[in-house]
Every structure is written in C-alpha cells, then in structure tokens.
C-alpha cells in the first residue's frame, strides 16, 4: 500500500552517506513499497539528521524477515557486547568529539 505511516526513532549516532560521515538524530521507519529492493513491500529505514534539515539520508530497504532477523541480531550483539564490556548506563549520550 502507499501510506504515510512512519515510526520515528530519536537516536544518537553517526552514519556514512554519499558525502561521508554525518551525525544522525532520527530514524524514520516504515513498511511500504520499496524504491530499489525487488520486493512488493519492504521495511525501510532512513537515517537522517532532522536538526540539520534532513537533506541527506542513509537508507536501507529490507524484507520483513530480514528486518526481524536484524532486530534479533542487534539485540544479540548488544547483549554480548555488554557482557564483554559492561552495561552502559549513562543517562545521556557522550559525544565522541
């Protein structure tokens, strides 16, 4: 379907786009027709910096199963990482620079 339903995730981090690395503050997440992936519907994520006008994005289009698998792998990586390095408990993100 063609919809305008978007889940917005506020986040802290960086992404590498066509012009190099950029700070990102938002992920727009939606499930709709992809632009590129050979799928009828895809889970799309656009990583953007909304505070700076969102003129660039780093985009992915994933099959529904791929997206679910990715969620699991993200959680698994966090669990094993925190097991090795200790749980990060700071209230606010620490800027890297």
């Amino acid at each position, binding site marked *: *379907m*063609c*919809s*305008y339903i*978007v889940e*917005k995730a506020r986040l802290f981090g960086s992404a590498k786009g066509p012009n190099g690395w950029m700070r990102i503050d938002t992920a*727009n997440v*939606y499930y*709709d*027709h*992809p*632009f*590129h992936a*050979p*799928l*009828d519907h895809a889970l*799309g994520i*656009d990583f*953007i910096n909304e505070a700076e006008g*969102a*003129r*660039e*994005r780093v*985009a992915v289009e994933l099959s529904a199963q791929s997206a679910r698998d990715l969620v699991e792998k993200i959680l698994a990586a966090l669990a094993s990482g925190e097991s090795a390095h200790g749980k990060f408990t700071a209230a606010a993100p620490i800027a890297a620079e």
Partner: protein
Amino acid sequence: MPRFGGVFCTVNSTRGMYNRAVDIQARNSMTYEGMLAETIAFRGHKGDVGEAYYARPLGGGPWPGVVLIHHMPGWDWWIKEATRTLAYHGFATISPHLYFRDGPGSPDDVGARVRAAGGGADEQVIGDVAGAMEFLRAQPYANGKVGVIGFCSGGRHTYLVACSLPDIDAAVDCWGGNVIVNDPKQLNAKRPVAPIDLTEKMRCPLLGLFGNDDENPNRDQVNRTEALLKKLGKNYEFHRYDGAGHAFFNAARVAYRPEQALDGWNKVFAFFQMHLTTPAAARAA
C-alpha cells in the same frame, strides 16, 4: 549492404548512389514515428513553478493530453516509462513532480522527505494537476481534451481530482488506496476528506483497474466504491484482475504481472481513445 535508416552518406560514388536510392525507397514506404520526452517547467498550485516529465508524439497532432499522477514513492523510472508509454500511444502526457517543493535531491530522497512529513496536501495536488492540465491545453498541437491517470496514491489523487476539477474529460484510477477511509483518525489537515465522500461531484467517466490480491484497496473497498458509483449513476467501468495485487503494471517491481498489465494497459488506451480523441486526432494517431 543497403541501410534502411534515415542517414544519407556515401563511401564511393557507385555504392553511394545505390544506398541513396534504397533509402529513399524505404523512407517513402515508412510511417514516420517520433517522440519527444523531456523535463519541463510548469506552473502548479498557487502559481508555484515546478518540474514535470513531459512526453509527446512528434508531428502536428492534434493530440489529446493526459496528466499522469505518480505513486507515493515518487517520480521514478517507471513513472517516466509509463509517461512515455502513453505518448507512444498518441497522448501528450505530463507527469508533474508532486514533490518538487521538497527538493532538491534524487526523486527517492525527496520522496522519503515527503513521507516523513506526512505526505503532500490534497489541495496542493489538485492545484498541481490543474496547472498541468492548463499546460497541456496551451500547446498548439493539443486537441483540447485532457484525461488523468494515477497509480497507487496517484490513483487516489485521480479519484479526488475527478471529483474536484470540472474540466477533466476522463479519469483512470489504478488501484488507488485510501479512497475509502474507515477510521476518521486517518483524516487530517493535509487529507481532510475521504475521496469517496466526494463521489457525487464526479463529472467525468472513470475507469478503475484493481488487483484482487491487493490489500489497499481490497476487494470489499473496490466493491463499495463501485456500488456508490452505480447508485449515483456515474459513468464508470471497473476491472478486477485475479492473480494480481498492488502495482501490477510496474515492471520495476516483483508485483509486476505481465498478462494482467497488458490487458490493463489496453483498457487504458481504449478508454482514453474513446473519451479524449477527437475525429481529427484519431486520424493523426
């Protein structure tokens, strides 16, 4: 080797004379065919100047016009291909970039911005389509008739403009979703009215093409839309395709269903031919 193209040149005098004679003979027996497809500027809602993709048959016409409304993902390759397809079949076709105000950028990036902002406003789309129609009618080779066709969200927009603009001669809704709005919470400032609630105002003939496996619009929604058109005595024809879902014309997607798409395209051409072609244009086509 004789050549059957339109280029005339000679390598040596004897061979050149032979080629020229064959070329002239071939050209006299050919029907000339040509098309111009390019980006143009048009004046849309509130006089805003934006870009559009415009394809038209070459020659004097007169040609009927078609406004092609792109789908929600934006002004992509397939939309431009569909624009050229209609031009090939004798319709001067303009596809306004409905997201031009949100540029610059590639159509997919601009489309992503528009999605994140909740989509374009219906009022703006109606104004842009009206501007595109004006562009078509202003061309010296136009026959004055203008149809509208739209895909996916553009199908919804087509239904909307068919109920909102008084001078559309024919409209084709290809699987427009959200024509019926079940949950009033889906209505907002940008989309304040469900197109189905405007059906009484529809003044032009409507062709609707739908895949029976589509979820938006699903079979029930298509049936309800048809029932209302019938009840109100509107001039319409609906066709439903088994084995097809949403966007089954779109050769850029896995949803593409060649058999159903071929039949559907032929219905589009016949419908526009019937409602947009004047006797003079029919001779030219």
